């Protein structure tokens, strides 16, 4: 019997590969700088900024603006809500794959 698939649990916010990538990095790294994220994901400033804004607006990530010397250093941390949402999304993905096996 195939397990019923609950599509509602698949989070629309994580529909984008980039947002999913950002969340994956932040889940295993307490805080990650903007520049490192840019290099890991291989995307442009504008692109990263717009995806970050979506995640921020959903309350999934927290921004911290600091300085290293005179240079600005922006770091991101995943929030409790973000972490929970990511787990739910992962479970949904897992169920979906299990459903077809």
């Amino acid at each position, binding site marked *: 019997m195939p397990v019923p*698939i609950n*599509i509602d649990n*698949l989070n629309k916010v*994580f*529909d984008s*590969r980039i947002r*999913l*990538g950002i969340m*994956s*990095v932040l*889940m*295993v*790294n307490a805080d*990650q*700088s903007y*520049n*490192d994220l840019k*290099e*890991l*994901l*291989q995307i442009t400033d504008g692109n990263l900024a717009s995806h970050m804004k979506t995640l921020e607006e959903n309350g999934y990530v927290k921004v911290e603006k600091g300085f290293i010397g005179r240079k600005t250093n922006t770091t991101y941390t995943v929030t409790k809500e973000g972490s929970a949402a990511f787990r739910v999304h*992962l479970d949904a*993905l*897992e169920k*979906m*794959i299990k*459903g*077809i096996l």
Partner: protein
Amino acid sequence: MNDPQRSLESIQDIRNMMERSSRFISLSGWSGISAGVCALVGAGFAYQYLHPVSKDFVMDTYEIMSVQTARNEVARFDSAAEGIISSALFWIGVITFVAAFASAFIFTYKKSKKQNIPIWGKASKRLMFSVMIPMIAGGIFMYRMIELGIFGLVAPACLVFYGLALLNASKYTLTEIRYLGIAQIILGLLNCWSIGYGLYFWAAGFGIMHIVYGLVMWWRYERN
């Protein structure tokens, strides 16, 4: 999004990003090979220096001299540090280390550029710290051994502490490096009961083991 193929791709993406950001996976096999070659060349120079005339003179006099003689040697200088920097062997070691580190860095830097992984990101910083802590502790420990005239245990201690550093590093990079670490620890411990043969153990550990490790890693990940 309810397409199973896409779910699978998503999971692979997640895994890939988690791995790339939490471990520094750009350590190149070529780095191991080049560091090993530098170590063997350095050991060759050290051998020439220690055995200028008779090639079959195997025991290293520095390592087997009595603690009292060694202390008198150290006492000729204002401090142990001064004694160390006035020793040709120390400078052979420093040059070897710098050459090995620089050549290893170049290959790893190239690989990180190719994989689009920051060379000085969170993962590589963590790797660096995990290596540095046992290394610095080892350095201070060995300095004190020299001060006390326990020359014979310096070479084994070097291998043991380096092995521990690699073992510690295996949490933050490709895990196979733990086997290189364990090999260095074993060689260091064996060397504790073969005082006087430090240079041979160094050549085996820093030279041959690095090359073997580098070749295995190259075969596994970079052969294409």
